């Protein structure tokens, strides 16, 4: 079938929403893993039937689920995420040092070419890799072992590694983002890493321009331009055209440049999307109006997309992993809210429809294009 499969993680289970290429009628399957927090569900680009899901609760810890049939059946795979060597310490909220402690998997990023290879970004921040379909996990400890590691500090949601981008032209180059440490890049398949935060300014820090400590909420890349990165930071929308070596602010005329997700149009590398949120103390849309802001110039010049979105009394949030795009033409854009809505646009954001209204609070949305 040609169409789209949305993989939705929520506070109380996972949902799979499926449509043909018209994207007008959606089949809703779920909840899967009912009652568990599903931080992320993501599929292998190399095998659309291979899907991984991060399942956890505060009671029973972390489970990793795998499907080999497009989400119809699932099996638990390996859930042992053991830090490599002595865990060491990072900075705690009060400025003291605190031991690294595993809490959960925030993000799963399957390899672009091998369905059995998948990366996991975890809290407390570290990057793990499995090469056997999720049965066993090994830490790529060169990241956490970076000399700045003891300066990393948790954001309000914890010290989480929440974004993993793989360069499609060179899989040895990857980017990860950590709240609140910043962005890091490897050019050798994850052995060594360097912070790439030059140009970021965070007024919450005593030294606004320090090397690490920035609360990066999400980064995004278009596969045809892997050296151009877009970032939604705690405050500020940023871009880099040199693989993260330097960053420029492109917030322009946004109603607020605080927010969580950022996404790139599937066919237009300079078209990007953010969801403005009023502030870090309120976490709601400005003026009660849910707006997706689109720039067709790679930033600075933004238009508010409102057709089909609530424009009064709306006080939901859109979390960092809860926006995705498909690869159909015209491009589809999707996002989920903390109020349980999943909105879809099949015309690059010009108009929106709520596919579902009343799911549990949405943590993540991924869009699989089925062809």
């Amino acid at each position, binding site marked *: 079938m040609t169409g789209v499969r949305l993989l939705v993680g929520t506070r109380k289970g996972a949902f799979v929403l499926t449509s043909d290429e018209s994207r007008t009628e959606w089949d809703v399957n779920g909840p899967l893993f009912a*009652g*568990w927090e599903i931080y992320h569900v993501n599929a292998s680009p190399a095998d659309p039937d291979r899907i991984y899901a991060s399942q956890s*609760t*505060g*009671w*029973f*810890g*972390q*489970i990793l689920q795998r499907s080999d049939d497009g989400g119809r059946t699932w099996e*638990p795979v390996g*859930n*042992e995420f*053991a830090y490599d060597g002595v865990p060491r310490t990072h900075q705690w909220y009060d400025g003291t040092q605190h031991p690294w402690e595993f809490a959960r998997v925030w993000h799963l990023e399957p390899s672009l070419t091998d369905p059995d290879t998948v990366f996991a970004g975890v809290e407390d921040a570290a990057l793990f890799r499995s090469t056997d379909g999720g049965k066993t996990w090994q830490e790529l400890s060169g990241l956490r072992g970076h000399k700045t590691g003891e300066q990393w500090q948790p954001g309000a949601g914890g010290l989480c590694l929440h974004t993993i981008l793989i360069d499609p032209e060179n899989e040895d180059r990857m980017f990860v983002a950590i709240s609140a440490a910043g962005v890091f890049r490897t050019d050798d398949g994850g052995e060594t890493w360097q912070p790439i935060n030059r140009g970021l300014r965070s007024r919450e820090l005593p030294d606004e321009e320090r090397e690490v400590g920035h609360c990066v909420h999400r980064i995004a890349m278009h596969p045809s331009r892997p050296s151009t990165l877009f970032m939604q930071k705690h405050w500020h929308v940023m871009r880099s055209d040199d693989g993260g070596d330097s960053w420029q602010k492109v917030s322009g005329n946004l109603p607020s440049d605080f927010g969580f997700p950022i996404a790139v149009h599937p066919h237009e590398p300079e078209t990007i999307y953010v969801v403005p949120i009023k502030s870090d103390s309120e976490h709601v849309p400005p003026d009660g109006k849910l707006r997706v802001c689109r720039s067709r110039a790679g930033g600075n010049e933004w238009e508010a997309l409102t057709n089909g979105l609530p424009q009064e009394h709306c006080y939901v949030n859109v979390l960092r992993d809860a926006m995705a795009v498909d690869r159909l033409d015209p491009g589809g854009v999707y996002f989920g809210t903390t109020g349980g809505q999943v909105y879809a646009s099949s015309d690059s954001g010009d108009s929106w429809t709520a596919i579902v209204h009343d799911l549990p609070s949405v943590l993540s949305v991924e869009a699989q294009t089925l062809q």
Partner: protein
Amino acid sequence: MIRVVLPQHLRTLAGVDGEVRLDVQEPPTPSSVLDALEATYPMLRGTIRDQGTAQRRAFVRFFVCGRDISLEPADDPLPDEVASGAEPFRVVGAMAGG
């Protein structure tokens, strides 16, 4: 034969409906019961106790014969009623409400 009662989420994860019955070497202890449980249902590894340290997870408790034994040594023998199968070994998720 040791009877083990699991909380609903772990029954679902393990794919079992009612109680779990396990053969455990005499005398059974909390540690040996959990060893047998995890050997039979490997998907439960890490959900009741840490895989590295074997420490009980903070929001999981163990009850036998109406008594909370969570803080007692994991290698202490369980009561005869549990060893004989008359009473179950209960794994309980801590209550949260309000």
